[in-house]
């Protein structure tokens, strides 16, 4: 009967049942979330890596598999390979291409491929696709099928018979249709929404007569192209390309990568059709690389989030423990009765386990669902699949099991104490938990502050929680002391409700102090996480700006004169005066030229960098992050926009602590030696290259260089003028349209994909989720405290109303009490986080030596959100204050 009653206890305990289930929901969420978060993170990292690969990347870098060879795709060897390619999962149906390779294989012998009819003769080369009509933008399709497609600009007509000639070899074909080409070019135009021809551009054959122009293409299907190629003795280089299916997960991509690796080994070690190919077969694919990079990036994230995950699980199970301990206290009479009735402690534990079985199952299952919701809605943007959902469900089940063990062991131990009570030799005193918390927090904080180790140890991550718990302890003590300062009431009539609230708060209740400590810790962790999230995001933004400088930075081989056909030349005789006609190359508004010099200074003999910029354009298109250091740098740039003063070169000094107090810096670039007038010292600047950097305007610096001006076109490219200067193009929109071939292009996107920044983004969300959960705990703590005190005080509150306090004042006293508790906890939380500000950089910065430094501050939005949570806690706790039990029952002495 007891067991039967135990199973149904959930439905009889009212609001307390809700709290029990919530505790298990929290435990289930904390245990289920890590697996799903990890998978979402891995998949997001993979997708980000995939998206970062430009569409025109080499096949070895792209998310595709490309088989090339000289054998016909209809040959047995190629068919075997295609069949094997099709067995690799998550790849699209292979697309077959074949391009004329005769010229490339003719070595230095003259080679020409033409198409003609009557008087019209044009250079053109064969190209095969699976279905020309489906892959081309058709301009005219009036000819019979099975023929060739020609570019519309060549002037042929559908239905005509054309002759294709390579040397003396000829073949005839009928023109099936004409296709559209890209404006100003020869490449076939892409169908709307497609980039297939643009992506093939790199592999299209060049014109027979020129290696800088792509060939006009005679496009036909595979059999037609084979036939024609055989007749004209042209060699076709065949390829089969499959792209990775969109939306695949990292695990699926790794599976594909393994299949590709296996195929690659076979291709490398295999002769096709028993003979040697004139062109060796080759497999190119970037899938494995992209997947591996994503795996490494996501593992970096896991290393950062794993301690937080364990902390969350510990706190969650601690929640269950706290709930069970409170339950035992709440039902101590019931436990005593059970013991007195002869129920052994183990049976008491068993009954409690039965009672909590349904809440544990419901709660942990709901927790699994909450975890899925949190991860999919607020976690990394990668998909969550059964790969992680099933293990997560298992983890939630383990949480339920752990919670049930706690729910059984704690009451069993409590019952055991009543079976064999210890005779109190001394009065039993409550456990002094406050002092140990303070001591441990101080020790941990001192240990972190004094540590010389740059790396943050896992145990250091506990410092914020300990510090905030200590702040909560102090807040609770302060509240009791302050409210107890005036114990006696004023003479005369008792008005309002403040006197009652003050007297209640002055009561040094350990339970109240614990509730304040838990609230302070929870609210403080939320505030800390929100501020940390802002600090980390700003720092990543700023560091990307400092490392990259602009979205696109192209390094030119040679000077800026290659951008300016009208550039003045270096005069025959060296001169210190400005060369007439010298100018900065005109570029679109989204691009500007930046010169970077090596700069030597007699100040301390170390090397620095000198950036010469157009301040106005630079300010518009450089990356400025979102933090205060780069904002200061941007503001300082305005000082360089002024018209140059005679003889003075104004400069901004960035990240040069050795010259922090200097207003003039002796400088030597090799082509110029003089003084820089420092108008501003800033901590960081876009494009800072790990050395102190000085920034000057071109209008104030170049006039001093004379014939050493880097904008001049060099007469002798090999002449050196003693200066080492790199010419860069900084652009906010790419450099494709600038008609220049840079040595390399560095992008901000690539910097953003650094593991450490991806990890920072991913871990941030998890940290906020854990902190939000701790804030929820804070809300629950106040609600539990409100519920317990409401139940305990029910009779006295009713009597207070009856003797003359009135319902309104009684309610106001209650609300005032809850509001003050919450306000004190919030104040403690803010004070605790403020105390952590000096340690925040140590805790949050994975690259403490990188500029700009991380700034950890209290932010207004974070304070507002924390205050809103505090108010919500008061509101919910007030709901728990409203008791529905009958007044008469409160007056009966049934205990």
């Amino acid at each position: 009967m007891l067991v039967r009653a135990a199973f149904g206890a959930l439905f009889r305990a009212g609001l307390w049942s809700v709290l029990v289930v919530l505790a298990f929901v929290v435990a289930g969420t904390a245990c289920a979330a890590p697996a799903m978060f990890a998978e979402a993170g891995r998949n997001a990292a993979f997708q980000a890596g995939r998206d970062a690969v430009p569409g025109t990347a080499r096949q070895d870098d792209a998310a595709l598999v490309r088989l090339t060879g000289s054998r016909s795709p209809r040959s047995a060897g190629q068919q075997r390979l295609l069949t094997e390619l099709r067995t690799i999962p998550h790849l699209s149906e292979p697309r077959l291409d074949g391009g004329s390779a005769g010229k490339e294989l003719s070595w230095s012998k003259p080679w020409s491929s033409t198409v003609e009819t009557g008087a019209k003769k044009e250079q053109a080369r064969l190209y095969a696709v699976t279905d020309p009509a489906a892959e081309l933008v058709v301009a005219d399709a009036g000819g019979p099928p099975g023929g060739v497609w020609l570019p519309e600009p060549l002037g042929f007509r559908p239905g005509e018979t054309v002759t294709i000639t390579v040397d003396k070899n000829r073949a005839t074909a009928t023109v099936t249709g004409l296709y559209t080409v890209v404006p100003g070019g020869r490449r076939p135009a892409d169908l709307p929404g497609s980039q297939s021809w643009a992506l093939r551009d790199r592999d299209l054959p060049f014109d027979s007569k020129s290696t800088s122009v792509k060939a006009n293409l005679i496009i036909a299907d595979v059999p037609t192209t084979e036939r024609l190629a055989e007749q004209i003795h042209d060699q076709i280089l065949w390829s089969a390309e499959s792209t990775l299916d969109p939306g695949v997960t990292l695990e699926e991509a790794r599976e594909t990568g393994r299949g590709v690796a296996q195929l690659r080994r076979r291709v490398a070690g295999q002769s096709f059709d028993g003979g040697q190919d004139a062109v060796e077969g080759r497999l190119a694919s970037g899938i494995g690389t992209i997947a591996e990079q994503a795996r490494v990036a996501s593992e970096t994230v896991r290393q950062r989030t794993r301690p937080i995950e364990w902390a969350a699980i510990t706190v969650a199970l601690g929640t269950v423990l706290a709930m069970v301990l409170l339950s035992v206290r709440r039902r101590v009479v019931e436990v005593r009765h059970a013991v007195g009735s002869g129920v052994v402690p183990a049976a008491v534990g068993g009954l409690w386990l039965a009672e909590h079985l349904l809440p544990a199952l419901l709660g942990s299952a709901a927790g699994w669902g909450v975890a899925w919701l949190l991860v999919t809605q607020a976690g990394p943007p990668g998909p969550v699949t059964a790969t992680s959902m099933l293990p997560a469900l298992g983890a939630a089940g383990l949480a339920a099991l752990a919670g049930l063990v706690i729910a059984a062991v704690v009451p069993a131990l409590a019952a055991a104490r009543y079976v064999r009570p210890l005779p109190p030799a001394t009065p039993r005193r409550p456990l002094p938990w406050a002092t140990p918390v303070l001591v441990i927090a101080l020790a941990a904080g001192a240990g972190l502050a004094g540590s010389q180790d740059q790396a943050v140890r896992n145990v250091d991550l506990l410092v914020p929680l300990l510090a905030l718990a200590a702040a909560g302890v102090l807040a609770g003590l302060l509240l009791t002391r302050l409210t107890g300062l005036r114990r006696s009431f004023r003479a005369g009539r008792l008005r309002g409700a403040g006197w009652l609230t003050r007297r209640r708060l002055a009561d040094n209740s350990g339970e109240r102090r614990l509730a304040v400590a838990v609230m302070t810790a929870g609210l403080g962790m939320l505030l800390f996480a929100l501020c940390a999230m802002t600090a980390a995001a700003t720092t990543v933004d700023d560091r990307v700006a400092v490392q990259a400088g602009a979205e696109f930075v192209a390094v030119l081989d040679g000077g800026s004169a290659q951008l300016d056909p009208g550039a003045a030349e270096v005069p025959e005789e060296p001169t210190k005066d400005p060369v007439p006609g010298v100018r900065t190359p005109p570029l679109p508004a989204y691009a500007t030229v930046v010169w970077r010099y090596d700069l030597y200074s007699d100040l301390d003999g170390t090397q620095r960098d000198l950036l010469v910029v157009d301040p106005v354009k630079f300010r518009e298109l450089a990356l400025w992050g979102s933090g205060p250091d780069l904002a200061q740098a941007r503001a300082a740039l305005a000082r360089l926009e002024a018209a140059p003063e005679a003889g003075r070169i104004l400069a901004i000094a960035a990240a040069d602590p050795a010259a922090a107090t200097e207003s003039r810096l002796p400088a030597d670039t090799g082509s110029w030696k003089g003084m820089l007038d420092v108008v501003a010292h800033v901590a960081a600047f876009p494009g800072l290259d790990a050395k102190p950097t000085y920034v000057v305007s071109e209008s104030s610096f170049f006039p001093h260089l004379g014939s050493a001006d880097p904008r001049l076109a060099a007469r002798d490219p090999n002449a050196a003028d003693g200066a080492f200067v790199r010419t860069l193009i900084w652009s906010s929109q790419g450099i494709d349209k600038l008609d220049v071939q840079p040595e390399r292009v560095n992008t901000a996107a690539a910097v953003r994909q650094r593991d450490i920044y991806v990890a920072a983004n991913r871990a941030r969300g998890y940290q906020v989720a854990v902190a939000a959960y701790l804030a929820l705990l804070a809300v629950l703590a106040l609600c539990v405290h409100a519920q317990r005190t409401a139940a305990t005080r029910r009779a006295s509150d009713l009597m207070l109303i009856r003797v003359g306090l009135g319902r309104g004042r009684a309610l106001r006293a209650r609300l005032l009490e809850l509001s003050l508790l919450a306000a004190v906890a919030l104040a403690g939380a803010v004070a605790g986080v403020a105390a952590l500000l000096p340690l925040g950089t140590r805790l949050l910065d994975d690259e403490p030596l990188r500029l700009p430094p991380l700034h950890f501050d209290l932010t207004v939005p974070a304070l507002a959100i924390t205050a809103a949570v505090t108010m919500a806690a008061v509101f919910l706790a007030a709901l728990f204050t409203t008791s529905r039990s009958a007044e008469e029952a409160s007056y009966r002495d049934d205990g």
Partner: protein
Amino acid sequence: MTTADLVRLDQVTHVRGATTVLSDVSLSLPSARLAVLAGRSGSGKSTLLHLMAGVMPPTSGTVLVDGKPAVSHHEWDRVALLPQRPALAPELTVAENAHLPARLRGRTPPPDLLTRLGLDPLADRPTHDTSLGEQQRTAIARTLVLTPAVALLDEPTAHQDDEHVSLVLDALTSAVTEGTLVLVATHDQRIIDLADDLLPLHSGRLEVPA
């Protein structure tokens, strides 16, 4: 109803759950009397007191105090109640609890109230730091502090030793002298012996008609 009736019950029946606690109870009581509700545990004494205090309305019948339904009385100087559980405010001292009804109205409590109930030495002690008997006497003081028209007390001597029982009895008789209708639910013979009116209750029924 006569002009002397301060409390009047007419055919009051009260059901709690599936149990009929009081069945067809009728009585009337004037002021300045010591009336005792006597009966065994579970006879309905406490319920009858609570009905007169207006804690809840009866299931049927009427309960009038000073001519008005009991549930409409909310003034402690009209109807004061000492329930089985003293229901003191634990954060207040003995004196503060006892004098609270007066302090809330800006009135001066009787200077000898605590002395008469032997609470002087405990005046500044928090009630959560006192014994059950001391808490009960504090609650009695709170009940009588405004010299109410009707004082309803449920087992006022349940936790008292002999010395303090006499203090309680003296306080009750003093209240009657001052005009209060004191109605006590008890099975303490010492109070029964002092009663002006004895109202025996048996299984929810009044055995002696009013």
